[in-house]
């Protein structure tokens, strides 16, 4: 694992809100093709950590390195431009738009109709949607249908597809399986395997230990803002992780 340079390195990161130490001196790394799970009880600092990585918060101290280069994101957009994409729990999709419309939301391709009139390039959006979703093993025939027509797991795939299309190297997924039924959860797990196979790094937040053990290479447990432990999945057990989480 250490033979390859890490995609993302977080070194001694702290984030304080006034007197509250939401995160204290946390370090972690994500390598290409690696899935790192973040676990911990509510308020353990998981969300603060990913927000500090993805540009929502500026860390109080410590640094974030992307491919060995120190970065300092002022906004989530800057992080996204550098290839760190966060996929939120509520999916952040516009339900009334097509898959293509969602992939290109905010950066829609235009073409000239009749040689002069700028119009949305729907064909390009549909083609990109088809191609991107096929990469995630989700073959869509109806590219003109709004995403509200698709199931929860398929919509999760659309959110991931958007990140993949824009060439995200690090995908941060916040509880991607929480709102889904069992078959859909399994589909998301297989999506994460696809991302891994494509050499991307994934940070995976979940409460569900079964999912974590199914998909992750390593697990980092946070407790009250500090790193309670880090284990290789192959060398740990559910019991040990739970003990780390509750501090027993």
């Amino acid at each position, binding site marked *: 694992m250490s033979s390859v340079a890490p995609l993302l390195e977080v070194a001694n990161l702290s984030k304080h809100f006034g007197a509250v130490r939401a995160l204290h001196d946390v370090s972690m790394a994500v390598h290409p093709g690696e899935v790192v799970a973040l676990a911990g009880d509510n308020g353990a600092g998981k969300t603060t950590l990913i927000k500090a990585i993805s540009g929502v918060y500026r860390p109080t101290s410590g640094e974030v390195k992307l491919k060995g280069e120190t970065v300092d994101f002022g906004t989530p957009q800057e992080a996204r431009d550098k290839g760190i994409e966060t996929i*939120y729990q509520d999916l952040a999709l516009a339900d009334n738009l097509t898959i293509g419309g969602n992939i290109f939301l905010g950066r829609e391709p235009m073409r000239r109709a009749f040689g002069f009139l700028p119009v*949305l390039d729907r064909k390009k959006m549909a083609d990109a949607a088809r191609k991107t979703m096929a990469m995630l093993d989700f073959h869509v025939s*109806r590219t003109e249908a709004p995403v509200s*027509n698709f199931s929860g797991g398929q919509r999760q795939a659309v959110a991931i597809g958007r990140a993949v299309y824009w060439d995200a190297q690090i995908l941060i997924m916040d509880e991607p399986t929480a709102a889904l039924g069992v078959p859909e959860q*399994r589909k998301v797990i297989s999506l994460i395997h696809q991302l891994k196979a494509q050499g991307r790094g994934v940070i995976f937040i979940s409460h569900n230990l079964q999912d974590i053990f199914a998909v992750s290479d390593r697990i980092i447990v946070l407790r009250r803002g500090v790193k309670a432990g880090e284990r290789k999945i192959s060398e740990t057990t559910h019991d040990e992780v739970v003990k780390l989480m509750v501090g027993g």
Partner: protein
Amino acid sequence: MAASEPHASTAGATGDDNHGRPQADHADTAKTLVQRIADLRAWLFLAALVLGFEAWARIDFGGTFILNPFNLQSIAIFAVAPLLLATGQTFVIISGGIDLSLGFIMGLAAVVAAHTINAFTPGLGMPLAVLLGFMIAVLVAAVPGTINGLLVSRLRVPPFIGTLGMFGVARGVAFLFAGGTTVPVQNSLFAAIGNGRLMGVPYIVIITAVFVLIMHYLLSQTRFGQHNYAIGANTQAARRAGIDIKSHLLRLYILSACCAGLAGVLYAARFNAGAAQAGEPLLLDSVAAVVIGGASLFGGSGTIIGTVAGAFVIAVIQYGLVFVNVEPFWQFISVGIVIIISVLIDQAQRRFSGGRQDE
């Protein structure tokens, strides 16, 4: 499909995918039937109304309703102002908001156009005065639109309240400008624009048709339109996608006010006078036209084409009832019933599309 269950996760996922696809397609077909009816409901209403009035006219007094060119002209002229207001309203409603100030912004623009044209006609001649009247009236209309936009986007005032306040302000200012009365226009060119025809089609109808076509393009073919739909469906998602919500909402409310501004100018041209109360009865008609046209007041859906049909539904009801000599109060009842039926169809459609197939 249960056969795929014991497989390893990748294989299982492929099985799930095969499982999921026909379901999605099934959901699509189930939806398209209801949705097709829902999408076309305004046109279906329109066809039913036209046929109904035609039958009524033939049975009652052996005349024709729709084949009479005078009726067509009158209905088109009748529809101009409500349609222009409804066009702006469509954009706002799709974004999840509402603009209650449009009626009096229209009145304000009508009064400003009348004053401006009267002021410039002696010095600059008729054509230039008319041009200035158009421009200044729309610019003045953009002022309350800008304030609406700032209230909604920067100060996070709910659109219903912000534009309700502006409704009062624009109303007061319009009546003050008008001196409490109507302002007659002394410019025969302006009157000619308001009442002239090109091959039987009134100029104001042509102007409105061109404008509405441009608005249709703006909503359906540009980033502005696409972002408008996205904001109406999921503002958070739009923001995370890097869309500048504040500037979009500001431009949105300016746009709707400008639609009302144009409506005001055309009103002044048609009646050769500006009146502060010009748009007073039209505000609710504009919302009704948008809703009948298939938009949801929750935001995220609606089209200009639908709104055009919605505006004509209202115009046909209003004109048709007068034509067949029914007491005018039936207009309110009929329009009200059409609105309710329209919303019921929207609800039914929502129930069908809402049942997602997660399992």
